[in-house]
């Protein structure tokens, strides 16, 4: 057993209102620079939709992630042989137009335009070339299902649905969507790290954050292809790849990452989980329907005395073990089994888990009547307007049972709380729902509390980074007093 600690995350999709505040917080801190304008380390997508970059989930196009290869896994579009063979031209790499060409407006024209019959306009100009451009796409071009025939219907998760099921999703009365905020998953089996020929990408041992060493990145661009979530971005100006750093300078000083901190809907939870690094390869190599269970098996019970003993032997600080015991992520993922990884079939073992949205799946329409009685709510979980198959394609590698299970648990909590606060439901119905998922009232109340009323410190349980110890080994602490973050010693200027 090789126990390590990993910063893990939960996004509660029922609570996401799609306001993009997280994206803006991230943009203002990290990617508001030349060459990084097009990057959204945090972005919010509408599902169904094609996302950003367009069709990122379709690995027939981008060849990201891992594929099963006998008893183990191998990189789909990169790796030692394929990577070095394609180093002069990477055939599966997304280019700027697959994201969008960033632009600004020529605001000065509003002031300097000569007097005339028309209102002066500020024309868009490209932030790459500085020339006038016709805006063709943006980071949220299909926000709220805008332009659906071109976007929502191209969603790769619809492939497994029958034509009738697909059609029913786009009937006006049944139409539904939900948001999918995405950041780097800081995976346990990161494809980006494995694909980097120069070894610039690495996983931090202390907290599992995946980073790119900007000094070692040589622009071989393999990580951009290999990350199936397309969360490694190429900075065309500096000639280096960049990615979400999970705001590690903030984490190290005990603050939540900016996108977490700023989240208006309070959908985000962050905490550490202990895991067994020896199980990574076997868990990534199981068959598709077992992927979720295999991944859940990696994470260990932080209350188990044996786990604690092994963790201490591995040098994990007691404060980190305490944080793991209080971790909201551990509760959502392991105890309550409400959160699932996004696209586990990419086999990177992502550490960002999603509580699937229950709300858009609740009501049904029969005979033109919007029916939301509790009876139909309950029966409706499996035969819903957002098909379970669709959610299964997103969160459980096609295993519909996993999604139904989560939905029933979410519904049991909802019925229980309705019984407590409104009291208009038949108590037998509530207990049936609770019993079916083996949930007691205390658990349901705890889920309700962490979902709806959690305070800042309950949502973000951040272990002390013990930077005071680690940094002393590397640098004279006096030199870096008051500093945090990169410690760049030179201007990050483009090479010659």
């Amino acid at each position, binding site marked *: 057993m090789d126990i390590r600690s990993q910063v893990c995350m939960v996004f509660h999709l029922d609570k996401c209102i799609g306001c993009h505040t997280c994206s803006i917080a991230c943009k203002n801190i990290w990617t508001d620079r030349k060459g990084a304008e097009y990057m959204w380390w945090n972005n919010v997508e509408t599902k169904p939709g094609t996302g950003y970059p367009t069709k990122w989930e379709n690995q027939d196009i981008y060849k990201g992630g891992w594929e099963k290869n006998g008893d183990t896994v191998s990189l789909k579009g990169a790796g030692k042989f394929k990577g070095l063979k394609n180093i002069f031209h990477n055939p599966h790499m997304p280019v700027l137009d697959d994201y969008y060409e960033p632009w600004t407006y020529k605001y000065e024209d509003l002031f300097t335009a000569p007097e005339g019959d028309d209102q002066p306009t500020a024309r868009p100009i490209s932030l790459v070339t500085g020339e006038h451009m016709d805006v063709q796409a943006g980071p949220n071009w299909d926000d709220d299902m805008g332009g659906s025939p071109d976007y929502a219907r191209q969603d790769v998760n619809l492939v497994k649905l029958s034509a009738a099921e697909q059609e029913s999703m786009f009937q006006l009365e049944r139409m539904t969507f939900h948001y999918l905020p995405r950041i780097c998953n800081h995976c346990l089996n990161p494809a980006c790290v*494995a694909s980097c020929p120069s070894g610039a990408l690495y996983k931090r*041992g*202390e907290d599992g954050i995946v980073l790119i060493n900007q000094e070692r990145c*040589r622009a071989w661009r393999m990580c951009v292809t290999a990350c199936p979530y397309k969360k490694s971005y190429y900075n065309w100006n500096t000639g*280096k790849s960049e990615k979400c750093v999970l705001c590690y300078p903030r984490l190290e000083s005990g603050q939540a990452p900016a996108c977490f901190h700023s989240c208006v809907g309070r959908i985000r939870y962050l905490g550490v989980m202990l895991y067994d690094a020896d199980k990574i390869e076997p868990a990534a190599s199981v068959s598709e329907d077992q992927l979720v269970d295999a991944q859940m098996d990696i994470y260990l019970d932080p209350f188990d005395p044996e786990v604690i003993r092994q963790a201490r032997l591995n040098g994990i600080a007691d404060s980190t073990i305490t944080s793991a015991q209080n971790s909201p992520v551990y509760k959502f993922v392991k105890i309550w089994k409400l959160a699932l990884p996004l696209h586990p079939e990419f086999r990177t073992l992502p550490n960002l888990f999603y509580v699937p949205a229950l709300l858009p799946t609740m009501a049904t329409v029969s005979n033109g009547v919007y029916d939301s009685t509790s009876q139909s709510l309950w029966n409706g979980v499996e035969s819903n307007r957002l098909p379970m198959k669709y959610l299964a394609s997103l969160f459980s590698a096609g295993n519909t049972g996993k999604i139904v299970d989560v939905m029933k648990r979410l519904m049991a909590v909802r019925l229980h709380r309705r019984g407590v606060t409104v009291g208009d439901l038949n108590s037998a119905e509530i207990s049936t729902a609770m019993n079916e998922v083996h949930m007691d009232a205390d658990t349901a109340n705890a889920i309700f509390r962490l979902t709806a009323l959690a305070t800042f410190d309950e949502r973000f349980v951040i272990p002390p980074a013990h930077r005071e*110890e680690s940094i002393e080994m590397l640098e004279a602490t006096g030199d870096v007093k008051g500093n945090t973050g990169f410690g760049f010693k030179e201007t990050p200027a*483009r*090479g010659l």
Partner: protein
Amino acid sequence: MTNILLFVVLPYACMAIFLIGSIYRYVNKGFTVSSISSQFLEGKKLFWASQPFHWGLFFLFFGHLIAFLFPRAVLAWNGQPIRLLILEVASFAFGLCAFIGVILLVLRRLTTKRVQMVTSKMDIVVFLVLLTQIVSGLLVAYYNRWGSSWFAAFLTPYLKSVFVFNPQIDAIASVNSIWLKVHVISAFSLIGLIPFTRFIHFLVYPVDYLWRSYQQVIWNWDRRNIRTSRFWKRGVPFKNN
């Protein structure tokens, strides 16, 4: 005098600049050591330009290196005319690949606005030197055929004398092919330009990827080693596994 300047002073100056400059840039300006790929801005034209260019240069580079290091083996190979022919035709084909590649790269840069935005002055110098180098090489191969055989008489003694710090320029100075002289001079200039241009990226070609483990985990400081070590000397600061 001109010959001494071109075939003695220039080579040594260029190689000194190459050695000192490359080390300096790697150590002190590590951030700038990158292939600064522009595939992200333009990917389609690049395929037909970059692939023949790089693979052409790849084989030509190692061809030249082998000819320089093992001239007798190459001469022995050329003992039979058919093998000489194969070698010459293959080399010329790789030369053409590189030539077509570099022409397409220049055209791509001229016609793509986005790529122009990331074109520096040194990129133009790179193109000029590469064009000189490749064109002169092709002309030598065409006008002074069977170079893989005659190089041993003209070039190897000269190059060897340069590398053992006892430069003898008689052989190279007596060559009456202007293109061969241009080829040698531009080759040394190219070496001298490495620290100042994107040429530097070929020095960091990631061969070590072949024997590295796929996943890399790095501890700031390996606490496991600190706490379990029975020795006073603490564990290594890096743990790569």
